[in-house]
């Protein structure tokens, strides 16, 4: 296949552009309503009512918050490094958005005589791509924290970055065990495998899922791992000097990360867009491809919403770790556990390859 300018499949390009547009806007809307849901969940768990003034049940509250953020005065500290100060939130937002590229949102639609895949890029290194982008996401925090020229911001940035690097290791090891079973890095294929077997990966890999879940909390900087924000220790963490929409970008990036990691966990361990208790292929043959694809999107989003609720539930239950506890958990508990999980999985895979049956 020779890539030349003329031989680009223009229809494919348009299709992908439309898909990217849809996914980005959906991510943004979901991030907006995550802020609303977070406040509601927090309120309900603390026997309060939460926002209920703007619109029915406070549903317009995110709009009001967004408007407020846009109207706020934009302050760039004089002694900060201006370009990097602006680059920080941009990096955070960019990396948060980029991860959605390899997640399969549904099987495919059949539109205008072509099969429209609901995955932006089915690259053969799928899951590694996400790791790569997430590891770039550290720079959003680090650059922002350093460029603010504030000691609290710098401390928070260093805390956040070392936390993300530490937990990335355990996350990678947990994933390796899963990859041994699936034998592919592509998320689309993993979901297909789970569909075929009718057995979700979290049944096969319960320990791996638990480790991945804990690491996902750490990667998203969510409580109990929100050491980089830590209002009561570091004022407001790495985005202390930020105001207006630049602050909004950081907060938004956090919520988008939460959305994407929920989607990722759903795809890796909970069958992705597979509709639970339904044979998807038979359903598609009976009712047609498009209704199936729509139902699959709904199913995936249902799983994502459950995960997001879980994120919030944990946030309003568990207090923050102390820093040494965080590092102990990451390096002395999760990594050995993940290594053990990896070895055990490898052993079983090897036995199975040699004809043992369980």
């Amino acid at each position, binding site marked *: 296949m020779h890539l*030349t300018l003329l031989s*680009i499949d223009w229809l494919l390009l348009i299709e992908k552009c439309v898909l990217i547009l849809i996914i980005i806007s959906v991510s943004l809307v979901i991030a907006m309503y995550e802020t609303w849901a977070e406040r509601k969940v927090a309120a309900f768990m603390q026997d309060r009512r939460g926002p209920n003034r703007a619109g029915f049940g406070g549903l317009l509250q995110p709009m009001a918050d967004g408007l407020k953020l846009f109207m706020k005065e934009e302050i760039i500290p004089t002694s900060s490094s201006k370009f990097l100060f602006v680059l920080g939130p941009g990096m955070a937002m960019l990396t948060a958005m980029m991860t959605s590229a390899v997640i399969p949102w549904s099987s495919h639609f059949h539109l205008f005589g072509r099969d429209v895949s609901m995955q932006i890029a089915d690259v*053969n290194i799928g899951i*590694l791509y996400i790791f*790569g982008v997430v590891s770039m996401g*550290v720079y959003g925090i*680090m650059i922002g924290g350093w460029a603010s020229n504030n000691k609290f911001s710098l401390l928070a940035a260093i805390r956040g*970055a*070392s936390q993300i690097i530490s937990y990335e290791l355990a996350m990678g090891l947990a994933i390796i065990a899963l990859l041994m079973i699936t034998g592919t890095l592509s998320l689309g294929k993993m979901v297909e495998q789970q569909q075929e077997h009718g057995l979700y990966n979290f049944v096969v890999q319960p320990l791996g899922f638990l480790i991945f879940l804990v690491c996902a909390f750490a990667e998203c900087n969510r409580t109990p791992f929100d050491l980089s924000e830590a209002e009561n220790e570091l004022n407001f963490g790495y985005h202390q000097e930020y105001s207006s929409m630049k602050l909004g970008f950081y907060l938004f990036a956090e919520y988008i990360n939460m959305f994407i990691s929920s989607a990722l966990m759903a795809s890796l361990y909970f069958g992705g867009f597979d509709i639970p208790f339904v044979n998807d292929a038979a359903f598609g043959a009976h009712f047609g491809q498009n209704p199936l694809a729509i139902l699959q999107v709904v199913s995936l989003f249902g799983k994502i919403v459950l995960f997001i609720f879980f994120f919030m539930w944990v946030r309003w239950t568990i207090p923050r770790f102390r820093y040494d506890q965080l590092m102990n958990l990451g390096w002395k508990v999760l990594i050995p556990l993940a290594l053990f999980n990896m070895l055990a999985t490898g052993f079983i895979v090897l036995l199975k390859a040699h004809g043992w049956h369980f």
Partner: protein
Amino acid sequence: MGITQVLFWFLSILAILSAILVVVSKNPVHSVLWLIVVFVAISGHYILLDAQFLAIVNLIVYAGAIMVLFLFVFMLMNLNADTEPQKNRWLKIAGVVTGGALLLVLVAALKKADMKAQLAEMGHGNIGLIHNLGAVLFSDYVVPFELSSALFLSAMVGVVVIGKKD
């Protein structure tokens, strides 16, 4: 000019320019950030050569982890252009001379090498895919692979030993 060439030239220019900026930047933090741009550009080259695994691992390991540690050190040491001590002129000249000598060696070595015979395969070939890479690593290159892992292990043990000693 195909899209591959366009990307190649863009990435090459980006890599060289940011590499120059790494050296020229007064602020060490800016240097590190430019170095990250270099790594990203090199990863782009890997993707052009269809070595996606290598590209992404380069990003994860070098740009994502090692450079963050570099940034840690620079940020905590708070190196600024005005606090940096003025270097001896002779030292500077010696640096230029050694750098130039290295360049000379590199140019001489590459001039002799038969580059034309090994055309890079662009856009096709499965050399860089993870499956083939793994097979090659564990069959043809087992000994170097295991040796390097032993090296890493000894480095880790060394770190623990140094860290425990007080």
